[in-house]
């Protein structure tokens, strides 16, 4: 094959060597990447699927990979054709290392032949990154919106406590042992305010609402961060307390809660007093932990406590029989 010098001017990544490997001409972009080279064997180490790295052999393979000896991170790929005089012409390219090479040598689009798709590749690379940035920002926005919506869905807007949904979620977490306390046992306390209706009737809903917020604040103050407090209805609250299986300790805690709520509250310039009744269900008293069952038992215990007078606490016997409430250990 004969060499057409005119064709070489179209190829900024060409390399023309004689039979001995002396460099006769190298494209302008190739020189920017590997520097001014005089000898093929000194400049390059053929890598990849070649049996031996002799020049005639390189002209036989489909694809040639040349590693720069001066800069081993730089691998060029291309193809070679043998010439009648024993020389070789390589048409080389940057392959997949394109982006990295352009960055390292600060190449511009003038360095590539217009027929080369290098710039389109770079354009795509850049566009792809820009789109990924946009998408991940959009994702973050949606994620934030989702969290906000979730928080709202699980929160009582008046007191900021959990609502029934939030409570159920916390209960499920405890039941499955993914909750804050891993001990596995927990207590469910149903609480209901005494004399709240009178307060609401005599001083108006605004004061009633302020009292509910005051109760929420006092409950927060008396409980731990791992406890769950929920407002499940008008003046009904539920507490989930992990890791307290002992009825005596629970009764003491319950009495403290009641005392705390009975403390006078200054609302809208006047002092009001209310009280609370508590019904307790303890997870260790059940063979099978069931949301509906424990809630119903805590409610029944609460009803029992109310029957015995205001400001009282009653603990359900659980599987050992609801009929015996108020008897046995715990009780009212």
């Amino acid at each position, binding site marked *: 094959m004969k060499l057409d010098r005119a064709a070489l001017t179209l190829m900024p990544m060409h390399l023309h060597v004689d039979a001995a490997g002396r460099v006769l001409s190298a494209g302008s972009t190739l020189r920017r990447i590997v520097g001014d080279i005089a000898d093929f064997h000194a400049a390059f180490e053929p890598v990849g699927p070649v049996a031996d790295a002799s020049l005639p052999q390189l002209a036989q393979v489909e694809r040639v990979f040349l590693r720069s000896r001066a800069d081993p991170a730089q691998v060029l790929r291309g193809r070679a054709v043998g010439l009648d005089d024993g020389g070789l012409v390589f048409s080389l390219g940057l392959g997949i290392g394109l982006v990295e090479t352009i960055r390292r040598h600060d190449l511009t689009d003038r360095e590539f032949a217009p027929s080369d798709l290098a710039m389109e590749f770079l354009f795509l690379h850049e*566009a792809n990154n820009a789109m990924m940035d946009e998408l991940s920002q959009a994702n973050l926005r949606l994620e934030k919106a989702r969290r906000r919506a979730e928080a709202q869905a699980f929160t009582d807007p008046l007191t900021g406590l959990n609502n029934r949904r939030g409570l159920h979620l916390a209960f499920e977490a405890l039941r499955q042992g993914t909750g804050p306390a891993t001990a596995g046992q927990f207590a469910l306390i149903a609480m209901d305010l005494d004399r709240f209706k009178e307060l609401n009737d005599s001083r108006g809903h605004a004061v009633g609402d302020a009292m509910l917020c005051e109760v929420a604040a006092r409950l927060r103050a008396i409980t731990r961060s791992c406890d769950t407090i929920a407002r499940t209805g008008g003046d009904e609250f539920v507490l989930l307390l992990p890791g307290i299986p002992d009825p005596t300790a629970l009764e003491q805690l319950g009495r403290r809660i009641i005392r705390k709520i009975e403390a006078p509250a200054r609302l809208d310039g006047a002092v009001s007093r209310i009280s609370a009744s508590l019904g307790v269900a303890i997870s260790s008293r059940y063979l099978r932990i069931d949301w509906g069952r424990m809630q119903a038992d805590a409610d029944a215990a609460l009803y029992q406590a109310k029957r015995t007078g205001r400001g009282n606490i009653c603990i359900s016997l659980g599987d050992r029989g609801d009929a015996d409430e108020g008897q046995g250990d715990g009780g009212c």
Partner: protein
Amino acid sequence: MHGLVTRSIEHFARQTHGEAVWAAAARAAGVDPRGFELMGNQDDSTARRLLHEIAALVGCSPPELSEDIGAWVAQRSAIRRLLRFAGSDFAAFVTTLGELRGRARLVLRDLELPAISVAPAPRGWRITSDCDAVWLHALAGVLHAMADDYGVLAVIEIRERSILVDVPLVDFNEGRPFSISDPTVGAA
């Protein structure tokens, strides 16, 4: 209309004319004032209504507004970089505008930009497209911004259905620096 286009209108309104203008225009156009998501598509009339409402609020004509939007979009650093990939000087940029549609499709297959053809004219080019006038004005805005970016003094005007680009001074100033590989070069 691709979500990118309506989102560009939204972001332009919010950043250049303020949240109040955006909120008022969105309400008047029957669009959620919280804004568009990136990948949601809207029908073309939504974008048109928005353009009209914003234009009315800021006291300009819809064509003027879409020219402003075109220039604003071309100056967003990511878009500006992608546009600069088209060529190393303003002449290369303009003469390859015919590829813009293909480039856009390469990135987002459902982003439909109008077909553009470029012909030489004395001291510049004549750019024609059978697209809507709104697009043509937006493209004129892009050309304004990119002429500044390349540091070229160009007179750009719309006559009938084409844009005339007249370049009395090729090397007007340095333009904004640009590097293919380094996004921080010339970044705002």
